[in-house]
């Protein structure tokens, strides 16, 4: 098992290097640092000196890949690629446009992101799996039919509608919870209830439908017929046999997103003014802060790869047939 995990981690390395190269190409080759400087400085103040100053302040004035002027190892290390891209592997993300250290900022913002994302994820999973199981239990009845109709309708509604509508109805008309904001300590729950609720509701449509398909696929299998033939009551067949076996395909989609929860949700966080990583990314996009966007791409990929490895490990836990040797 340990050997397998180590091997998977080693496989992940080339992928991370690939991600790094893609972001490097996107941010420094497609556009030269000069272009970025012109964009950031605006049209009026663009003089060659101002551009040079902007680049020097941020360390973009070095050659991209190979520094011919430097001697020895510095020819490779004293370059934009090494300083800006390769350094991300050791957790050095540089500074944002406002001069703050990006790594510290990310560490501070993970908490609020998780405070929203984790309850949404757990509650959402519970609600959708139970709903899907109920639909599968009452399969081919009117309840099942209208349940699926509801799911299709819900997945055809824009996620923006859930957020805007929820905020308007619950916070503005009914005045139950604050419309946006975030607070520490025990009072925090008042800010969390609405985003979590909206997050759960907006995910019901597509997830329920998908889980229902998985359950229905299991229902038709031989072991289910055997269980029924043994005389097990239908509820027991569902909870002991179908639910447990359907967990394997469900895990594929679910475990992979767990690490990404750290990233927060872009939309929810920015609408509710939660100081997490999602709103950090949106602010960076709007301010055209290239360094922050670059760092978030890298961290996002890192977390995704961790999620893939976790998925494989969780398979061995739920399915004894799978062994990694």
């Amino acid at each position, binding site marked *: 098992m340990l050997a397998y995990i180590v091997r998977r981690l080693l496989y992940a390395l*080339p*992928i991370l290097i*690939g*991600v790094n190269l*893609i*972001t490097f190409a*996107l*941010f420094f080759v*497609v*556009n030269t640092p000069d*272009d*970025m400087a*012109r*964009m950031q400085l605006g049209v009026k103040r663009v003089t060659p000196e101002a551009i040079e100053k902007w680049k020097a302040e941020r360390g973009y004035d070095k050659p991209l890949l190979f520094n011919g002027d430097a001697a020895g190892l510095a020819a490779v290390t004293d370059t934009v690629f090494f300083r800006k891209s390769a350094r991300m592997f050791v957790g050095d993300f540089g500074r944002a446009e406002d001069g703050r250290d990006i790594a510290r900022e990310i560490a501070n913002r993970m908490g609020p992101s998780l405070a929203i994302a984790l309850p949404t994820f757990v509650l959402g999973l519970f609600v959708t799996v139970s709903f899907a199981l109920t639909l599968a239990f009452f399969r081919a009845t009117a309840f099942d039919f209208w349940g699926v109709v509801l799911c*299709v*309708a819900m*997945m*055809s*509604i*824009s*996620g*923006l*509608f859930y957020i*805007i509508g929820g905020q*308007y109805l619950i916070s*503005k008309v009914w005045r139950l919870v604050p419309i946006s904001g975030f607070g520490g300590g025990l009072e925090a729950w008042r800010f969390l209830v609405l985003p979590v609720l909206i997050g759960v509701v907006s995910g019901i449509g597509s997830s329920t439908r998908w889980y229902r398909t998985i359950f229905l696929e299991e229902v038709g299998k031989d072991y289910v017929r055997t269980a029924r033939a043994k005389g097990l009551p239908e509820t027991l067949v569902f909870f002991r046999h179908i639910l447990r076996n359907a967990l394997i395909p469900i895990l594929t989609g679910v475990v992979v997103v767990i690490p*990404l929860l750290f*990233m927060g949700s*872009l*939309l929810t966080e*920015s609408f509710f003014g939660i100081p997490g990583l999602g709103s950090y*990314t*949106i602010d960076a*996009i*709007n301010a*055209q802060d*290239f360094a922050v*966007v*670059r760092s*978030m*791409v890298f961290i*996002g*990929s890192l977390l*995704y*790869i961790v999620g*893939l490895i976790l998925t494989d490990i969780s398979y061995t836990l739920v399915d004894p047939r799978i062994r990694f040797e």
Partner: protein
Amino acid sequence: MMGFQIVVLWSDILIWLLLAAGIGFAVLIARNPPLLAAWRRVGASRVGMASATVLLAFILVGLLDSLHYRPALEGKPGQETRYAVEVLSVLDALATPLRTRNEKTYSEPFATRLYAKETVDVPGQGAVREYPRLKHGGKHLAEREDEVAADAGFTAFRAGVLAFLCWLAVAGLASGAVGRGEAPGTGWQRIWRGETAFAWNAVLVALALMLLVAVPLFWLSGQYHVFGTDKVGQDVLYQILKSVRTGLIIGLVTTLVMLPMAVLLGIVAGYFRGWADDAIQYLYTVLNSIPGVLLIAAAVLMMQVVIDTHPQWFSTAAERADLRLLALCFILGITSWTGLCRLLRGETLKLRELEYIQAAQAFGVSSWRIIVRHILPNLMHIVIIALVMDFSGLVLAEAVLSYVGIGVDPTMTSFGTMINNARMELGREPVVWWSLAAAFAAMFILVLAANLFADAVRDAFDPRA
């Protein structure tokens, strides 16, 4: 007759190309019995055909909005004709009253007065604060302002009767075609008893609903602002119509962009295996491991820099917005081809071990010929399912991306920009809800139709279903 200069935007070319490809594909299907049988199954699905009818209406609006021109400016005789900077489309020309009859600012649906009070000089009374009359909405009523409901109701009723007559004509034609060569009336009976192979009853019901909504809407929009007006006084119905094209392009062109790459790479990886497989798998694993939104954000940010630093490339604002739209399609395409590519690779791996492929190999048929003749046709169902399944997701994604600020050009009308502009107005008192509601409703209808159609297609094509 004013002169005009035809403007061909890149997205126009692509959307017409797409239509041509669709027609070509239909010809191909007609010659291929298994595919034809699958499409017949789609045609028999009531939900599928009803949603297809709705989708066709959207596509028609989108196509009308994809023929662009620049009207000639009125100049002195003998002068060289000059053309307006503004690029218009055939849809704009058809909806000229909607486009030009702008108010000053917000007004509610069917309102005759503005949303906000203004200081107006009334002769004899001096300056008075009141809700000024709209310049266009309900103008024909003059002093009978309180009769809006009766007037609109009567107009809607007349339009409804007209819509019903239109529908009867279409339904009559359809039943004539169904019951050709039989006693009169049998076609009609067979349609409503659901005895036709093609789901005519669903199509006709969907058409009836659409006509009953569209014709009165069209008629009323000549006298009122049916969905109200927005902040700068533009008719919301007009904006909805303009948004359709943006949504369609995002949904269709993106798939078109990613399709060749996904199909080619997927087949090559699955068929040739070896280093090609390793390289392609590496490529899509890397792209796949970057969270979609972030990759799109990074790429759009970079595209913005390119567009902003090269203003000399574009002669009109419409061209710039158009290029940005296309670039967005490309970026979405590049981030979304990996799933289809993996599916196709897996399926090709299975197919290449089958006897008939091995027989072809033993006969010395070249690899490319095997791929084109034997593998590609057997992958078509996966491609078609992916194509229709992606559409609705992309339309929804456009709205979210536009909100985040990495969507279409802010000057381009789309559901996303409409929602983005309207969402702050919920904070006003009284609430300005109509713009937001109309955008969400139109998007919901489009996406719901697309989802239902996709389900019908998947059920017909998926051999497991």
